[in-house]
């Protein structure tokens, strides 16, 4: 390694570490606040490591909010909706990216346009429709509502477009059906995109509270975020508890992300596509 390279590497690390600290400060504050007594939360200068960590905050939130039921409901919704979204989106994206059929661009445009409409605009008509199907206050209704997003299709199409057509033509000449191409070529090549989509869907559904708020009214159907949101408004002056609750709700998403890291590391580079 040359001297220039070493200096470059050191600078790179310094930059990365500084950036990482910048990114983490708010979370450090959150965790530190979650272990403090309420009166110390805003005291300055900030005491990053509380001298007397108040673990009781975590016990308190667990007692005040039926988190287990919430986790069960959230996991049900998130897992099913994310799975449906990944499968149907990558299917549709293949059609949009690599197949030709009449009206393709028009339909795709319709998908893209809907991404731009704020949910508040069609929240009421959507609620009325889902109510008429008898699906309000059911997890099924919420799952269906969140399983067919235009963003998922758009994301997958964008990745599929980048996969060279020659590869598909070669496969077709080899006698692979379109379904075979989707399963044997497109999916394996787009692992990173699928991972991105899973995370995006997972994060959205995990953190969503407006949907559950409007569609789920029975207490045994409430989700974690809904419970946390209600907790936040009910204990609006108790930052320590709010931060503890936020920390708890973040853990599963973070763990999932760590697991999916593998796909980003592995990447799609090894596939040997000729550019």
């Amino acid at each position, binding site marked *: 390694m040359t001297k220039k390279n070493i200096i470059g590497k050191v600078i*790179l690390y310094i930059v990365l570490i500084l950036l990482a600290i910048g990114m983490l400060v708010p979370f450090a*504050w959150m965790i530190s606040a979650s272990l403090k007594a309420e009166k110390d939360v805003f005291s300055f200068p900030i005491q990053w490591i509380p001298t007397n960590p108040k673990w009781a905050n975590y016990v308190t939130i667990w007692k005040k909010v039926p988190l287990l039921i919430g986790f069960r409901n959230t996991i049900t919704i998130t897992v099913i909706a994310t799975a449906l979204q990944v499968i149907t989106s990558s299917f549709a994206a293949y059609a949009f990216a690599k197949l030709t059929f009449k009206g393709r661009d028009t339909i795709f*445009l319709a998908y893209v346009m*809907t*991404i731009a409409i704020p949910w508040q605009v*069609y929240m009421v008509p959507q609620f009325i429709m889902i109510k008429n199907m008898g699906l309000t206050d059911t997890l099924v209704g919420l799952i269906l*509502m969140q399983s067919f997003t235009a963003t998922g299709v*758009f994301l997958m199409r964008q990745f599929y*477009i980048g996969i060279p057509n020659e590869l598909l033509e070669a496969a077709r000449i080899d006698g692979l059906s379109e379904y075979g191409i989707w399963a044997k070529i497109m999916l394996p090549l787009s692992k990173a995109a699928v991972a991105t989509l899973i995370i995006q869907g997972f994060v959205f559904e995990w953190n969503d509270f407006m949907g559950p708020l409007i569609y789920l009214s029975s207490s045994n159907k409430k989700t974690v975020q809904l419970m946390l949101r209600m907790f936040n408004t009910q204990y609006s002056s108790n930052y320590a508890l709010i931060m503890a609750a936020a920390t708890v709700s973040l853990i599963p998403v973070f763990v999932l992300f760590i697991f999916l*890291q593998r796909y980003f590391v592995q990447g799609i580079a090894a596939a040997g596509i000729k550019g």
Partner: protein
Amino acid sequence: MSDTSAKAAAAAAPKKKGSLQRHRTLIAYSFLLPNLIGFMVFTFVPIAFSLVLSLCDWGAGNTGIKFVGLDNFIQMFTQDKSFWISLKNTLYYTVVTVPVTLLIALLLAILVNKPIKGRTFFRSVFFFPYVASLVAVAVVWMALFNPDKGPVNSILMALGIANPPRWAASQTWAMPTIIGLTVWKGMGYYMIVYLAGLQGVNPELYEAAALDGANKWQQFLNVTWPCITPTTFFNLMMLIVATFKSYDIMYITTQGGPGEATKVLAYHIYNSAFVSGKFGYASAVAMILFVIVACVTLIQFRVEKRFTDYL
């Protein structure tokens, strides 16, 4: 498998072109339908209905829907000062947030794509704000930027700045504060998308470029950048759309204030619908948002087409 290859062989015969076309269309629809049906029922129809509402007067009540033609739009353009203010704020927010986020996301992606120790850790760190719930991080961010006792201003004052910005409490600085929060929270996601794009670049291309004597910057310009253009298009689109329709950040932090300094179009739509109870009018404002994004998308399509043709 043998069945499909037989079909492919048959398809090769030119006289069967018509039925082949039909067959292909059928296959295409079989890919499309599972998503299309759900999308139509749960998203498209309610949206289509809302857009029809933009020509109507409807209060979401059982007082009936009244067709009013273009009245909503006329009122919006001629009388509603808040509409113009929020349109201006939306453009400000978008024009700053989009390039800044895109640039930082690409830089971060390039940095954490390098073969260094601990890159998984760094990726997770940069990505983490994206997964965190907005409600939680917004509270933290606002505490850090508190104009009087927040750590940020304490540090600025210690550095000798007598009158540091009053951040969210000031007409001038409220929007930059919110943009900062948006970029910080969102860039991790776009970084990940870029990362997926970067890893799709064939390493042989770099080797070839290096053999031709290209330096790092030239390699970036001639290899990396063209290869990740579809990713950039995706990020650009998603960012523009996300910034255009974002309102929750303002709702949680500034409620659109001070005054109307951070009131954006989507916030105005929310207010018109749920505060004023004018769903028809809210749909009309949404229609404007829709048209702007439609134009952006069409331009993007054109450019993308030219790019893929060139490839």
